[in-house]
């Protein structure tokens, strides 16, 4: 390694910390979205580094679909306690009960889309003017177009055709009343970067990322965790398999992969030779080719 040259993980770390500090400095009420998945765990870790020895100067916000993996919630509460962060939880169930959102029906029903309603309501209620998210540009083609500081109009909508140019590292967070920003500190990270960073920094992650036995529903080539939240179809095959999760989201749409990988380095070796993207295991993206762009335009992450 050349002297005075940062290797790429440290450069990505420095960039993300810069963006998080910039968000804390430019906005009045930032919040960090926390889903319990590895990206938001890494982002939270970076936020700790950014302000240490002070505590993270903004709350974590979890939009709870009510269909979470139990392990994720246990992990979330333990982590929040350990780092002394403030956690706000808002429930999709409440949005449904209040008539703000309508539950989808049928075997493919998911609360993934409904999350947007709860999220936008929570941002308004908490007067959040900048919501940081762990989305990465390598995840999906619409996300590849995102800025670090992504402007949202007063309806929370994204206008991908008229984004502010983002030059050098001069981030423009100026906005009118009622508008807000989404901020993506991990924009330039890839799935592999995230895993390598977790290993480098020895960051704890929920156990369901590692290989375990689980009852799964085999449907359309996707392995869904069997739970009471999923309505079964006749064609569904229910079996116990040795699996782990590559991404963690709502139980109804997060697919598992068959894998014996039970350590970080085994996971990393597996990803290095994997021929499908991590979103290839997501049911929500398979709905249509522009599923992500359509959801993002109306306020999804």
């Amino acid at each position, binding site marked *: 390694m050349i002297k005075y040259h940062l290797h790429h993980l440290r450069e990505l770390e420095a960039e993300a910390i810069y963006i998080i500090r910039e968000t804390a400095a430019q906005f009045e009420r930032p919040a960090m979205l926390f889903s319990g998945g590895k990206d938001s765990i890494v982002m939270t870790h970076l936020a700790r580094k950014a302000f240490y020895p002070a505590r993270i100067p903004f709350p974590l916000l979890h939009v709870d679909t009510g269909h979470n993996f139990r392990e994720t919630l246990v992990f979330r509460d333990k982590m929040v306690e350990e780092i002394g962060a403030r956690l706000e939880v808002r429930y999709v169930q409440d949005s449904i009960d209040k008539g703000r959102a309508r539950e989808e029906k049928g075997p493919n029903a998911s609360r993934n889309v409904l999350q947007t309603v709860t999220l936008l309501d929570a941002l308004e209620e908490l007067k959040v003017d900048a919501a940081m998210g762990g989305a990465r540009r390598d995840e999906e083609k619409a996300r*590849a177009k995102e800025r670090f500081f992504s402007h949202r109009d007063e309806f929370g909508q994204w206008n991908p055709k008229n984004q502010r140019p983002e030059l050098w590292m001069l981030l423009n967070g100026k906005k009118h009343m009622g508008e807000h920003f989404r901020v993506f500190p991990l924009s330039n990270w890839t799935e592999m970067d995230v895993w390598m960073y977790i290993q480098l920094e020895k960051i704890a992650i929920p156990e369901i990322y590692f290989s375990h036995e689980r009852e799964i529903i085999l449907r359309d080539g996707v392995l869904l965790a069997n739970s009471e939240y999923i309505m079964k179809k006749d064609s569904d095959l229910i079996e116990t398999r040795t699996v782990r999760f590559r991404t963690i989201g709502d139980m109804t749409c997060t697919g598992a992969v068959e894998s014996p990988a039970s350590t970080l380095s085994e996971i990393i070796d597996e990803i290095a030779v994997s021929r499908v993207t991590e979103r290839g295991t997501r049911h929500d993206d398979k709905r249509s080719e522009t599923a992500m762009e359509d959801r993002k335009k109306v306020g999804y992450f």
Partner: protein
Amino acid sequence: MSDFSSEGYMNMELLRFTTAGSVDDGKSTLIGRLLYDSKQIFEDQLEAIEQRSQQRGFEHVDLSLLTDGLKAEREQGITIDVAYRYFATPKRKFIIADTPGHIQYTRNMVTGASTANAALILVDVRKGILEQTIRHSFIASLLQIPHLIICVNKMDLVDYSEEAFSKVVEEYRNLSTKLDIKDVNFLPISALKGDNVVEKSTNMPWYHGSTLMYLLENLHIGSDENHIDCRFPVQYVIRPQQTEYHDFRGYAGRIVSGIYKPGDKVKILPSGETAKVKTIELFGEQITEAYAPMSVTMTLDRDVDISRGDMIVRENNVPSMEQEFDVMICWMNANNLQVGGKYAIRHTVKDARCVIKDIRYKVDINSMHRNEQDKEIAMNDIARITVKTTVPLYFDSYRKNRHTGSIILIDEATNETVAAGMIV
């Protein structure tokens, strides 16, 4: 990725590059090719674009569909916005900003260029140098992109002719004498067929240079950062509300240039006060030498009044501190620049306001002539202007330091970023 090693991964360098060139010169196809031949395209992604290509009746898989991500882009078959792509080889990780060639999206090229180590400029060998090629080369030189790679593309359509290649090279050399470019490389390629992209072409035995991939992996980027002039803009002041850290005052930020060590005598701008660096740390870990582009937290040996936007520099190497200076700008907004107009200005992490005192000249990109009469600065125009700021800024010329020499102008009514500026 078969020769993946996790130890190697920890030691990889990061190279950021941007693509430029006229519409249809093959930028998106080239990126698709780089990703495809370096086996960075996943099965589900490939399946999706195979399907699209078939639906459209193409005989080959259209690799440009990989980067054109927005609905409107796929419908119109053009690139509208910057798309970022990532790939890695055992040597380097690459971040690509794929930018559109259309004139109305020139601002996106500037965006991609502002952080790039290298620019790939595509030229269709049959068409030679076009207006967009000149414009993009000029922007690359204006933004001081350290390395330029001129990819003479579609060689398959001219029977891989050496003459055709040499003609473009010569034409480009004439152009580049008028530009300020440090390192230019020329490559004959076919993005569609793959010649000289990742694999060495067997169709051009007359070409003895390297492939594009080899060049990208071996460009010398070690000296792209400035390690001489110490500049540390204070981004955030850390004052923990916990009793155990009652007296802690940390200055958080990103080192934009130079090397800092504990014990260094430093000067704080704008106050001019001096102090010594006590510690440089991150997450409690002490750093003995901190350099660009690290994000760190610095503590000083005595209490000095420092706030966001101040800059910590070395006592004997200070930037200029002025309220009036000249800037080369690229205008990026539909509303024209107003002489006498007031704008918000952002420099490092400092916000101020400014007034446009004068338009010195506009650059005619085709001839690269300076026009001192034309004062109408519209979208995509490049001009030299004089600005006066409400408070002094501490800056270097852009040529000396990309980080302390760059600014953006923001329209105070719309909050839009309206110009990218390089301090002369």
